[in-house]
């Protein structure tokens, strides 16, 4: 309440406007600086906080000071300058607290409320401390209501200021206009608080003041304070703006850099991934190669053969596991040539042949017996082939040695079986021959016996017919001679069963056979012709050669039995030949089917319904065992078989 005797004060309104302007400028600076303080860290933050607090504190203080100066009393007023300085200090501290609170990362309601209480109290303190610095001849009276109201206003405005500052501290597009608006509101609010505070006081005339340390403020000083304050605020805002731009530029540069770093990182990541993939693939390839090697090794070691390789100097550089297991030789022992001398059966003469092929660089193949680690021999097939470079030089030799023992055994068994069959066939041939002979002998014997019986009957008569008797007896003699001749031939055939090489005239053999088969030929109405060259001596087994001839002749006779369109002729021919003696058996039958020509000498091959297929096979063996050759000549009308036999030279065994 203003007492009736209080001095009446008046306001210089232009001064008031200036104070409000200072308040708005300081508010703007505060809002702006809050953003900088928030953005900064560490010492820079402290610097911004101090700078900001100075500028804001100065602004608040200047506004109050200006506001007080705008109040004109009809008295001379002086100011106690240490108190003025104290109010300035409080203003700055209060500003520091406000900036600190508004620039924190978070501002909860408690913190905002506490901040606004401190700030509001601070501003109110600045105001009342400033008033306390006045030295004038009057007693100062305060209206408690208005004082409390001004403090409440200060706290409320502080709360609004903190919230605004916190809200506006980040830089966005509309920040500057909003800050300007907010600054106007805040400035207005601070001014309103001040002038409320001013209204709470009244000056009652009193004793003259203690003017120690008091100064009066000239209009120049008054304006200087405002100007200095504005310059400081401007400097703070400018610095803030420059800093913000710089900060924005740095941020932009940072962003560009970060983007480039991110891109580069992406590229590097991609390259890394490609590298990792490549490494994985290489590892896989190496693994595959290793497996392939292992598989190959397994194949080579498991192969049912002894596998080796040799260098051109003859030393072995690889022997597979089977080789070492079979021979019992180590790799070191298996190198070179020396082991071969003892490992192969000496009868098979392997080493010299292999050395010859090796020296000539020719592929080699031979069957030989190889000694096993336990000393037993088994038959093996050895095969070796050279690997040559593009110039034809032997680079390496590769070879396999395959166990053929079982095959060899089977071959031997087959040979044995064939020998047995040959024997059986021969016995059978002999049986047939015997039947033919029996017939030959029986004919003269029948005639002989019958004639003799006739004679006996005739002689028993009272008057025998002597003429008839003489005739019959003459026939008996003739038949006896005939039978004897047959028996001679049989002896020639049968008495020499065991193979016996003797000196022979081949023509004799042919003639003996011709006599034997003549009857058979005649029965089939075949004319049997011979064309024999003189003096053909050979060394051989008579019975075996007869067997060959009988075989060829019987084949011809069989072939011609059904012949009706031309004469049935069989020609047996002998002649001298480059290889010794040549014997040919030729018929006028249908000949040998060209499709069979190369098979007829095979055992068991036959074209006869009841044939065994051994005749020609055995015949060929017999001829070859005599050192000759038996073959069929193609394109000669009927069948033409010929065989050669070496000539016998006297004195040679």
């Amino acid at each position, binding site marked *: 309440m203003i007492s009736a005797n209080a001095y009446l004060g008046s306001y210089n309104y232009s001064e008031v406007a200036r104070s409000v302007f200072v308040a708005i400028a300081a508010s703007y600076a505060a809002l702006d600086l809050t953003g900088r303080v928030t953005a900064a860290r560490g010492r820079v933050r402290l610097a911004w906080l101090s700078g900001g607090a100075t500028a804001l504190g100065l602004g608040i203080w200047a506004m109050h000071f200006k506001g007080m100066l705008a109040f004109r009393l009809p008295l001379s007023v002086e100011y106690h300058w240490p108190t003025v300085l104290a109010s300035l200090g409080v203003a700055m501290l209060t500003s520091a607290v406000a900036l600190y609170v508004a620039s924190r990362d978070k501002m909860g309601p408690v913190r905002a409320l506490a901040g606004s209480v401190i700030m509001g109290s601070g501003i109110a303190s600045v105001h009342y401390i400033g008033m306390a610095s006045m030295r004038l001849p009057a007693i100062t009276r305060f209206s408690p209501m208005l004082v409390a109201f001004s403090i409440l206003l200060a706290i409320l405005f502080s709360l609004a200021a903190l919230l605004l500052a916190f809200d506006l501290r980040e830089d966005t597009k509309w920040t500057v206009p909003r800050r300007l608006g907010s600054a106007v509101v805040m400035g207005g609010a601070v001014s309103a608080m001040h002038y409320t505070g001013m209204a709470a006081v009244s000056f009652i005339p009193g004793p003259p003041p203690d003017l120690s340390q008091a100064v009066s403020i000239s209009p120049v000083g008054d304006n200087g304070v405002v100007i200095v304050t504005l310059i400081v605020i401007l400097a703070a805002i400018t610095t803030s703006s420059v800093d913000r731009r710089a900060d924005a530029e740095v941020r932009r540069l940072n962003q560009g850099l970060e983007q480039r770093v991110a891109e580069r990182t992406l590229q590097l990541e991609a390259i890394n991934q490609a590298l990792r993939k490549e490494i994985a693939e290489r590892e896989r390839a190496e693994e595959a190669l290793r497996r392939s090697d292992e598989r190959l090794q397994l194949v080579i070691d498991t192969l049912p053969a002894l596998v080796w390789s040799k260098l051109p100097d003859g030393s072995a550089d690889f022997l597979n596991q089977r080789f070492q297991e079979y021979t019992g030789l180590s790799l070191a022992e298996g190198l070179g040539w020396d082991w071969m001398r003892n490992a192969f059966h000496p009868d098979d003469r392997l080493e010299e042949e292999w050395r010859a092929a090796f020296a000539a660089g020719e592929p080699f193949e031979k069957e030989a017996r190889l000694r096993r680690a336990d000393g037993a021999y088994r038959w093996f097939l050895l095969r070796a082939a050279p690997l040559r470079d593009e110039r034809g030089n032997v680079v390496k030799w590769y070879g396999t040695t395959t166990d053929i023992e079982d095959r060899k055994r089977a071959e031997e068994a087959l040979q044995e079986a064939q020998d047995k069959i040959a024997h059986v066939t021969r016995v059978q041939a002999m049986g047939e021959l015997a*039947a033919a002979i*029996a*017939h030959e002998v*029986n*004919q*003269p*014997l*029948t*005639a*002989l*016996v*019958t*004639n003799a*019986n*006739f004679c006996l*009957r*005739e002689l028993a008569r009272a008057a025998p017919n002597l003429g*008839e008797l003489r*005739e*019959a007896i003459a*026939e008996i003699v*003739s*038949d006896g001679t*005939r039978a004897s001749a047959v028996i001679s031939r049989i002896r020639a055939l049968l008495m020499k069963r065991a193979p016996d090489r003797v000196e022979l005239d081949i023509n004799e053999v042919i003639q003996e056979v011709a006599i034997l088969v003549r009857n058979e030929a*005649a*029965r089939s*109405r075949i004319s049997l012709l011979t064309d024999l060259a003189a003096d053909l001596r050979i060394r051989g087994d008579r019975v075996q050669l007869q067997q060959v001839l009988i075989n060829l002749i019987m084949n011809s006779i069989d072939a011609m039995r059904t012949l009706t369109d031309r004469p049935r002729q069989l020609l047996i021919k002998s002649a001298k030949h480059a290889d010794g003696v040549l014997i040919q058996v030729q018929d006028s039958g249908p000949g040998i089917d060209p499709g069979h020509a190369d098979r007829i000498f095979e055992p068991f091959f036959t074209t006869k319904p009841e044939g065994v297929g051994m005749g020609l096979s055995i015949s060929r063996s017999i001829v070859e065992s005599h050192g000759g050759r038996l073959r069929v000549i193609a394109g000669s009308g009927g069948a033409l078989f010929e065989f050669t036999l070496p000539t016998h030279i006297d004195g040679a065994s």
Partner: protein
Amino acid sequence: MTVAAPIVFVVDDDPPVRRAIKRLIGSVGLQVELFGSALEFLASKRPDAPSCLVLDIRLPGMSGLDCQRELAEANVRLPIIFITAHGDIPMTVRAMKVGAVEFLTKPFRDQDLLDAIQVALERDRARHQEEAEIATLRTHLESLTQREREVLPLVVSGLLNKQIAGEIGTSETTVKVHRSRLMRKMGADSLAELVRLAGRIGIPSTKP
């Protein structure tokens, strides 16, 4: 009826054997004809007389067994004696099955051959005689009238005259006349003989 003198045919490819056999058979007074092959024999004209064939099995051209088959197919029922240098059992069985009289292995005993020839000729002679008798009976049969030929099977079947009369629709008296006439013409003294004769020429009894 006069019976011609018996004749023996010999087929063998060996001339000395042929000649010896002819000498032997000739010594017992039989006529002999010689052939060198089966075809030669088959082509020859054989007289109508009791005869037999001495046949070698192994012959040039047609064999003895083939010749036997030819004769059988031509319905020539000539008794055959085979001779062979070496015969086996299957060959013998085959020859005997087709009706050979004997199978002799060369050289044979002279008496064996002569005995076989005797058997063969006897068989052929009997056959000849039977053929002659049947020929006579057939002549008798042909001398019967139509009516008598109708009555004959009924008489042979053992029917009474009355039954026969009923069968052919005539009187008993007429049947009696037919019966006595056909008995006389067929040369039968009794009903039993008539039945035998009728059987030989294939007239069956009509009633069981």
